[in-house]
């Protein structure tokens, strides 16, 4: 794509970097203001967990790029298998393998 030209492309990279950096910087400033073990910090934590879970589910349910070529059923089957294995065994690498293998099997068998 030559839509942007050399400087335009690098300006885009710079803007993407700034767009992320402002949150990290704001986070550093905010972190020193919120007392540890306060209800506010607990709330920040649950929101962080919910947001990260949301991002991950978005990658799985509405993926972009190469993953979009697989079926939603394949991906959800892999996820459910991994979470199920984790609940049973409490061993992360083993559960990860179960999930990934189920996804691979589902891609090729069903």
């Amino acid at each position, binding site marked *: 794509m030559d839509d942007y030209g050399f400087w335009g492309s690098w300006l885009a990279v710079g803007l*993407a970097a700034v767009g992320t950096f402002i*949150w990290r910087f704001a*986070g550093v400033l905010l972190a020193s203001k919120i007392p540890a073990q306060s209800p506010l910090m607990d709330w920040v934590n649950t929101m962080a967990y919910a947001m*990260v*879970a949301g991002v991950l589910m978005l*990658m799985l349910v509405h993926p972009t790029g*190469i993953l979009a070529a697989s079926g939603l059923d394949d991906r959800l089957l892999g996820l459910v298998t*991994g979470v199920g294995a984790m609940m049973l065994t409490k061993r992360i690498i083993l559960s990860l393998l179960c999930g*990934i293998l189920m996804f691979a099997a589902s891609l090729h068998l069903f």
Partner: protein
Amino acid sequence: MSISETVALTAPQMRRIAAIDALRAPAYALGATMAGFATIAREAGFDVWMAVTTSALVWGMPGQVAFASLYSAGASLFIIFFAVTLANMRMLLMVVSAADMMHLHMHKLPLWRRVILMQCLAITSWAHLAVAETTYPRHLLLPYFQGFSLTLYASGMLGTVFGYFLPDMVPPDLLQIIIFITPIYIFLLIATARQKANRLAVAFGGILCPVFYPVAGEWSILLAGVMGGTLAIGYARFIAKWHLEERR
């Protein structure tokens, strides 16, 4: 190892243990994820320097993917800035939460060092910090994070370079499976968070976000995070009355 056995560890020892932890699985998974980003970036028209610089400075997958897809669509610079900013907003909460977990205030670091430290924060290192918190004493969590996140960072950069040049050599089916690893890995980590309120937040956020997406687009992450997190803490505090104070 129990907490009592780990208290005697020195900071360099802790960094080494953390680096080895990272090399057990997460570093490869993240390298593969960044390789996935590099293939998208190459298709979008990035040269290898742009791809590596983006990985290094943005260092947050959803923002990077949003950037590459908008770039390939020829979107305006303003739209690119806006979309990446929105996609990476969770960094704010993750940084606050990570600083709290590491007890960063104890270490009295100058602002620039705290900023550099948090530049290395990724979902994987944040999720692992929550696991390390249950194993290691609080004064060692900062060195743990340093060792872990620097290892991840290095593998992410390597992954970006490899991914840029190698996609022709890896069959697409295999690449799909490789890219599937990171989201599942992190999901397993956060779904087994020690605090019930956080596990509940994972369930709420995970369900709400894809539901909101068709209507809210990129805003769905923010919406699901705030609503899911608020519902979870509200339930934990006022309805179930779980003892959040006893978390450490």
